[in-house]
């Protein structure tokens, strides 16, 4: 397995507009890195550049300690699992998995040994003589993974492998990929648009938007300290509540914000860089709000929609003069539409973003019972 280093990587098709600009990323040996972001953010392009299917317009790409910018895919020591699996329709499963090894000139005995070993790992040994069209979606996916494994690459690349599977299969396969990672001690770069997949699988998550890396870090980092509005809104479901306001006073130990809807909120963030009167956005996650007045900062509003999930209620509250807010409430508690509701949160639960959308450092993130609970839920 190898490490990967991307230095000032750039991609542009016509020399004028950049699809990717200034990508810097370090991936350690054996790490599972997930590239995540909305459509068009450049994650697939980056993966294809890693693979060698797209030209690199600028910057350097190193696998191991080798600069691979101009190397063809086969010489980079990588293997890719495509979104639609890309199995050769006219070849059996065995032939599909053996193809790459045959190209590399391995002898028959070696090929058989490797293919059967990989098939055993993925539990598809009984399918070796079948054609792809005789397999289910999940089975085809395993063959695609098997095809990658037999080549014993330094680096595995996955391009949205779960998006063609139905929901139940997706969860199951997700677990298997996680297990495979540990089994093979593999360095993996994995692309997905689904933030839940990203959070559950990745050692390191790289959030991308419009060709730039917004933030890279562990799932918890991204959850607790999103660096800007985009990452904050992207990670976590339901999406973080945002409220506009302006600074009343700001010190290193905390910030007092006057919301546009009138409330005064104290947030436990480092406000030393802020000036009074500056425009800010407050962020508050649904799971950090309690349906009572127990928290230090208080709000009220009227319930407009309730989604009952059994394990929780998602309560949508409209506030006079302010933004709608969603609260994650106790699923076994009854909430009526139209009822007035008082809700609150601790000052340590808030995120504050300055006028450019950059986050201020939170002073005591994760220092709450509800935070611990939500961590366990998203795992």
């Amino acid at each position: 397995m190898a490490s990967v280093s991307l230095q000032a990587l750039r991609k542009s098709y016509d020399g004028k507009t950049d699809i990717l600009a200034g990508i810097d990323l370090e991936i350690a040996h054996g790490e599972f890195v997930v590239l995540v972001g909305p459509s068009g953010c450049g994650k697939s392009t980056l993966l294809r550049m890693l693979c060698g299917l797209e030209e690199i317009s600028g910057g350097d790409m190193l696998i191991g300690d080798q600069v691979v910018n101009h190397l063809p895919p086969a010489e980079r020591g990588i293997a890719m699992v495509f979104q639609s699996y890309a199995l050769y329709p006219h070849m059996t499963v065995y032939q599909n998995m053996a193809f790459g090894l045959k190209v590399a000139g391995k002898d028959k005995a070696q090929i058989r040994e490797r293919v059967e070993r990989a098939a055993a790992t993925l539990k598809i040994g009984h399918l070796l003589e079948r054609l792809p069209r005789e397999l289910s979606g999940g089975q085809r996916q395993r063959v695609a993974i098997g095809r990658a494994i037999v080549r014993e690459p330094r680096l595995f690349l996955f391009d949205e492998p779960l998006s063609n599977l139905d929901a139940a299969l997706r969860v199951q396969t997700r677990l298997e990929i996680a297990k495979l990672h540990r089994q093979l001690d593999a360095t993996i770069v994995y692309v997905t648009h689904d933030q839940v997949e990203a959070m559950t699988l990745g050692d390191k998550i790289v959030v991308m938007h419009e060709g730039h890396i917004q933030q890279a870090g562990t799932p918890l980092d991204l959850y607790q300290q999103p660096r800007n509005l985009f990452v904050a809104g992207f990670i976590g479901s339901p999406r973080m509540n945002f409220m506009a306001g302006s600074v009343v006073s700001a010190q290193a130990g905390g910030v007092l914000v006057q919301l546009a809807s009138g409330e005064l909120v104290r947030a436990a963030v480092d406000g030393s860089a802020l000036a009074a009167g500056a425009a800010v956005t407050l962020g508050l996650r649904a799971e950090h709000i309690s349906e009572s007045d127990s928290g230090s900062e208080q709000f009220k509003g009227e319930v407009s929609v309730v989604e009952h999930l059994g394990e929780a209620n998602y309560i949508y509250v409209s506030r006079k003069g302010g933004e709608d807010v969603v609260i994650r409430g106790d699923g076994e508690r009854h909430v009526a539409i139209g009822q007035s509701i008082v809700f609150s949160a601790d000052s340590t639960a808030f995120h504050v973003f300055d006028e450019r959308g950059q986050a201020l450092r939170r002073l005591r993130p994760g220092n709450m019972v509800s935070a611990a609970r939500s961590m366990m839920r998203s795992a």
Partner: protein
Amino acid sequence: MTVIAMKPEYPVTPVAPAQAGSTRIDFGRLMVHAALLAYTALALFPIALILINSVKTRAAIFDDPLALPSMESLTFGGFVKVIDSTNFLHYFGNSLIVTLLALFCIVLFGAMASWALSEYRFMGNRLLTLFLALGIMIPIRLGTVSILELMVRLDLVNTLTALVLVYTAQGLPLAVMILSEFMRQVPAELKDAARCDGVGEVKIFFQVILPLIRPAIATVAVFTMIPAWNDLWFPLILAPSESTRTVTLGVQQFIGQYVTDWNSVLAALSLAVIPMLILYALFSRQLIRGLTAGAVK
């Protein structure tokens, strides 16, 4: 209620324009272009040769066949001869009438039959489909003997009608196959919705289905009009008279007659080719799209 626009701010380093991309001249690609250029030349030069020489004097044709016409050698005498001694425009009109009428009949009758065969389940459906499909493989010319006798009996010899009927019969099998495929792809909801509204089957066909299959008509046109226009056999056998002669037959007869008059021969060939070239220049995209669409059967 506005949230501050999520426009992330990151240091936007002014990006230097990409270096003139590594123009590593790909030798492989060069060879590909060379091969394609060579073949294109091979495909086009005979036609170009004819066109160039059709406006040269006889002497120039023989002395320097590969040269473009110069001021001295330029002449339209051949064209004049052709148009004078034959009824070329008339032939052209005949070809046009026959081809267009045949296309119309093929599309209309073919669509109606395709609709019935692909939409309704009835006894004999499969048999009829097979019956029609056979016509694709089995050439109609083999029945010429009987067709001629039939035309004689119907008193249709030397009429354009005979040609239209024959080309329609010839083009129907393939048209039915292409159109059936197409019609099967019309979403069932459209038809069911119309039926729910109480619209009769005939009306559904003319007002819902027919407009929807316009793309397929391009494909049908390619596969039926070209063979009909270029056909020599049936005009020769069924309608060789002067008044019903088609372009293809007319050119063939003319050349047979004036075989030593190179200038006129070349002019006749050019006159036959130029309309096709013009049509092709205008419609090549649709034509090729129609061809490849129908090919993936």
